[in-house]
């Protein structure tokens, strides 16, 4: 089975590719470049095309499927009209699949399930990354706030931090929020 993964995000394409590589009897092609997309798909002559829902070239590819004689058989949307759950899961995960008409559903279903899982895994990865970045930024704000307290009130570092924590507890807020307020106030009062 020939599978084309069309994704402008090379990183996500790699995550999907890695997941599908575990399947037997599959040849996988990754297409990340928008230019020449249609010609490339023609060369690959895939049985299945996986494409993320956020790809602006979906309309181009659908037109190609609708009018082209380059592929031997027309390509149908998703797996099977009756397989609503599978389709809903795909849309939820953000992946669309085009399948050569007539391909047996039992061959497609596991592949699509796998693709959906990989898409979801990638989305989680990104969320984790965003959270890690957020945590890093919070860490920096807390450090800045500590330095402001140390400079302006002559506190040692441990006590500056304890001050922040105590205030946060008293106000029912997160330390990062208090630190942010300290930094903002300091900037407003003419500090750097």
């Amino acid at each position, binding site marked *: 089975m020939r599978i084309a993964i069309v994704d402008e995000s090379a990183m996500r394409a790699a995550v999907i590719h890695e997941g599908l590589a575990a399947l037997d009897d599959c040849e996988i092609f990754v297409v990340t470049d928008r230019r020449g997309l249609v010609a490339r798909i023609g060369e690959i002559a895939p049985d299945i095309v996986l494409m993320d829902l956020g790809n602006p*070239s979906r*309309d181009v590819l*659908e*037109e190609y499927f*609708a009018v082209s004689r380059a592929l031997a058989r027309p390509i149908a949307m998703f797996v099977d*009209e009756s397989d609503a759950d599978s389709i*809903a899961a795909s*849309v939820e995960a953000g992946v669309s699949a085009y399948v050569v008409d007539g391909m047996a559903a039992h061959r497609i279903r596991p592949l699509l399930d796998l693709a959906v899982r990989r898409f979801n895994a990638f989305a989680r990865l990104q969320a984790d990354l965003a959270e890690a970045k957020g945590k890093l930024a919070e860490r920096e704000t807390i450090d800045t706030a500590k330095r402001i307290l140390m400079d302006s009130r002559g506190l040692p570092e441990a006590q500056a931090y304890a001050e922040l924590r105590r205030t946060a507890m008293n106000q029912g807020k997160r330390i990062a929020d208090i630190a942010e307020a300290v930094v903002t106030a300091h900037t407003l009062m003419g500090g750097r």
Partner: protein
Amino acid sequence: MPNEFVVGFLPLVDACLPILAREHGFAEAEGLSLRLVRDISWATVLDRLLYGHSDAAHLVAPLAIATTLGRDRPAQPLSVPFVLGLNGNAVTLRPELARQVGTPGQLGDPARVGAALAVVAQARKAAGKRLRFGVVHRHSSHNYMLRYWLAACGVRPDEEVEIVTVPPPFCADALEAGEVDGICVGEPWNSVAVERGAGEIVLVTAQIWRRGVEKVLALREARLEERRADVEALVRALRRAGAHFVDPANWDVNAAILARPEYLDGDAVLIRRAISDRLLLARGGELVHFPDFMFQHREAANFPWVSQAEWLYTQMVRWEGRGFDPGDAIRAARVFRPDVYRSALLGTGEPLPGASSKVEGSLKGTTIVGTQQGSITLESNQFFDDRAFDPADLAGYLARLP
């Protein structure tokens, strides 16, 4: 607690009414909490609609009909209770081609530009390098309008010129790279191409058909029935948004709203031009004012005339080459739902036409028409070739087209 209602859209100026209905509180005043979901391909807007991620979508009108008829996807009946606007698209050519066939400094006469283009198209075909045009979707008004104009000017689409799909954000790139010689697209994408020097605007679609149906609000038929009261509330909110949109006093604020990252993520200056019916045709030129370039409100512009759906069906048949099917014609006509529009606005001050279908393109001047409520004066609604479309005889109309 207001009812949440989700509307999918593509970042185009004519997604304005749902955006403004949310931003100015018109939806909220009708008891709706409008949530807008932005996508960047019509395929994805449609998928979200079909699989229930959205309740309604800003959609190219022919795609609503194609979906109902099961073109390219399993058939799913869609319903259109509201037309989001008429026209608002333009034909932009690569600068050297524009200077060859257009009228510098102004919008050209469609017949004259078409005749000049026919000469170039012949030469390019003879040279084995056919002219190529980009449209945003094959089931789009852009595609049908471009083809209507070319065919009426003696240029045979698909034979003498190629027409391919190009996503709106890539139109300027495609012109610049020479992947296409011209595009027919909505705003702000013509203006983006002009600003970059990648293209010059030679025509607007309002010159091809003075009152051509463009984007619609589409829902799955089943969802429309389930949420009928909310849909009618939305229709009222969108009418109010339309009145706000066309008032010159609001152009600046509305352009700024539409330009935001969560909506068009574009340039407010370019957006304001489209809203005010003004376009820069070529870099370094003067703004040209073309009244009713976009048409969002007057003359009951949002009324889903059944005859508009039928005209779109005739064009689908014309270019698909599958032949006219009376059953499909009826299914296509039923996509437009004037009954919902009427029941939403009955008893408000909004004008409601007396009829639900009309001969398209037959009015040369201003005409007062019979109404169910209020008064409506229709202005010229002609096609540039003076052909009229009588919905009573679809097959006859098709047979007479070039």
